[in-house]
């Protein structure tokens, strides 16, 4: 009973393989370009904005899109990339979970000779070839924090400062921290860093850390967060300590962030936030798509394309609104 069964099983698979067409599906229109977009997650506004920006950029160039979201599972992401390859996409734009787990996917794309661009998160050093588009975390943070320090100087006294760190396994978080430290250096007479709160990109951890830091140093006058998506946690900690005030009210804590999401933009408008470093999602989307097309055309592309970004603050907020993605989406909740 088993033997005919096994034979059938093997036979079927053989027939399936023979039936396969090794050239892949013949595209109905050979001039149609298709790009696969694989995101690790869509759980923060920033990724949603990036996803939408890439799709509209592709649409404006008449490029077809295949989408895939891995929900944090690198194994699934590898399968998704392989599926793109199977479907003969002309290029892949990938947001990996982290710098290393994406390497098998990049290798697979390399083997199929399909250009692959890493959006916002570059891979760690490897023999696998990819192009990354990334915000210049260091410069943008440094510029933002310098603006905050400028505000602090106006008070005339030495201000105590806190930074909320990201997951230091993430190269972006490291760049932002280094930018912060670089801005502080040389301004020690105005500013003293009393708290470096780890968050590991986790709201609850950030909140607990900020609450503790505010208890230890009730006179903290400046807070910089490595990402705007942690702002709600910081606000609730500040409210609990009765330190949440607008810039023109007494007791205002100077606050700055990174990303430029909708919450940050709204706080800026309301006067609670002083500045945030904006990753230019539109620039990054455009650059990613351009990189894919350039690689496809056999042009040499820099392995790391940096998004210069900009700082948005009270004085330039109207003028920069159009290029700040957070100004163009609804804030979460």
């Amino acid at each position, binding site marked *: 009973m088993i033997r005919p069964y096994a034979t059938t099983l093997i036979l079927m698979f053989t027939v399936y393989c023979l039936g396969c067409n090794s050239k892949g599906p013949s595209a109905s229109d050979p001039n149609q370009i298709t790009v696969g977009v694989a995101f690790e997650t869509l759980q923060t506004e920033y990724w949603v904005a990036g996803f939408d920006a890439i799709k509209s950029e592709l649409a404006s160039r008449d490029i077809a899109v295949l989408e895939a979201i891995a929900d944090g599972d*690198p194994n699934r992401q590898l399968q998704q990339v392989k599926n793109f390859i199977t479907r003969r996409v002309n290029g892949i734009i990938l947001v990996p979970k982290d710098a290393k*787990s994406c390497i098998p996917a990049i290798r697979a794309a390399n083997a199929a000779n399909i250009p692959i661009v890493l959006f916002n998160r570059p891979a760690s050093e490897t023999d696998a070839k990819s192009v990354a588009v990334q915000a210049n975390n260091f410069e943008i943070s440094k510029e933002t924090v310098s603006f905050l320090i400028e505000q602090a100087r106006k008070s005339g006294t030495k201000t105590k400062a806190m930074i909320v760190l990201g997951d230091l396994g993430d190269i972006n978080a490291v760049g932002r921290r280094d930018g912060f430290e670089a801005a502080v250096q040389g301004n020690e007479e105005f500013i003293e860093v009393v708290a470096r709160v780890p968050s590991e990109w986790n709201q609850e951890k950030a909140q607990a850390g900020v609450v503790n830091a505010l208890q230890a140093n009730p006179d903290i006058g400046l807070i910089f967060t490595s990402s705007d998506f942690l702002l709600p946690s910081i606000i609730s900690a500040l409210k609990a300590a009765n330190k949440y005030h607008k810039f023109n009210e007494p007791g205002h804590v100077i606050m700055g962030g990174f990303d430029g999401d909708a919450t940050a933009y709204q706080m800026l408008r309301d006067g609670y936030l002083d500045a945030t470093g904006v990753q230019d999602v539109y620039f990054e989307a455009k650059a990613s798509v351009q990189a894919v097309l350039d690689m496809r055309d056999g042009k040499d592309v820099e392995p790391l394309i940096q998004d210069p970004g900009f700082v948005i603050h009270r004085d330039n907020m109207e003028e920069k609104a159009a290029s700040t993605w957070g100004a163009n989406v609804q804030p979460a909740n």
Partner: protein
Amino acid sequence: MVSRFVHSGYLTLLLCGVYCLAVGTWVPGFFTLENAHNVLLALLPLLVVATGQTVVLMTAGIDLSVTSIIAITSVIGAQLITSDGGPLAENWLATPIAAIAMLCLGVGLGLANGICVAVLKMPAFIATLTSMMFLSGLAIWWTQSEQIYNLPRSFLSIGNQLGSVLLITILLTGSVHFLINRTLFGMRLRAVGHNPLAARTSGVPVSKTIVWAYVLSGFTAALASVLITGQLETGSPVQWENNLLDIVGATVIGGTSLYGGRGSVIWTASGVLLLSLIDSSLNLLSLSHFTIMMIKGAVILLAALLDTLRYRVNEGNH
């Protein structure tokens, strides 16, 4: 004849064929060698774990700890040989030592599961569910949630080359098939699954048989872990965390009974094939993960329902 057909795994195989024909014509890229290669490479580790699961299901038990065994063996094996400070990093025997260590660990964890179920008489569901929670937690705590990279090429090649994966899978499934069908152990396995009281009365060492089933399941989980870790080039504490239902589901889709006694590696192979074909085709259609989960869940539910119906027909009006 009809009942024979429904009772055997042919039904699943037929479904595989029908599915291929129905879907392959309009899902772009389904009938490509590349896709066949991808489907196979992803399917084989699943088949390896599901083979162990088949043996456990045949005792009327269940092993829910397999994904956590995959995770813990993955991180421990990877930590031994990573060039980021693994103790065996430069050792020329690193790969075999790590693989053997992973397999031994899998066997040990399976043994612990088996003792909980057969000797301490815990319900299999709760024993393996708790060991899953414990081991997953342990893997995350041990690595502080870090992934482990930079594994030696020789180790990776076990898992990312179709030839070696295919060879390992065929060897394993072949041996387990032989074990189930041609040995005393297999005979006892069926008896224990059908009716443990009758098995005991017939002089079958019931506890020992059950313990061996879980040991085998732990072994296959560890073996799958070697393949998966190589395929993803990563030792991860959450390795395959989301694939538990696929493992049990593929086994049940094949026709192995959740009520024990009935099972076959070849059935399981066709269950794995069907589930992988569904998964691959839906992915090729770029459906969202949640949609795919819903569809696969529905398929597994149907298979479990069919199993229950078969069981009720078998047991008469009880």
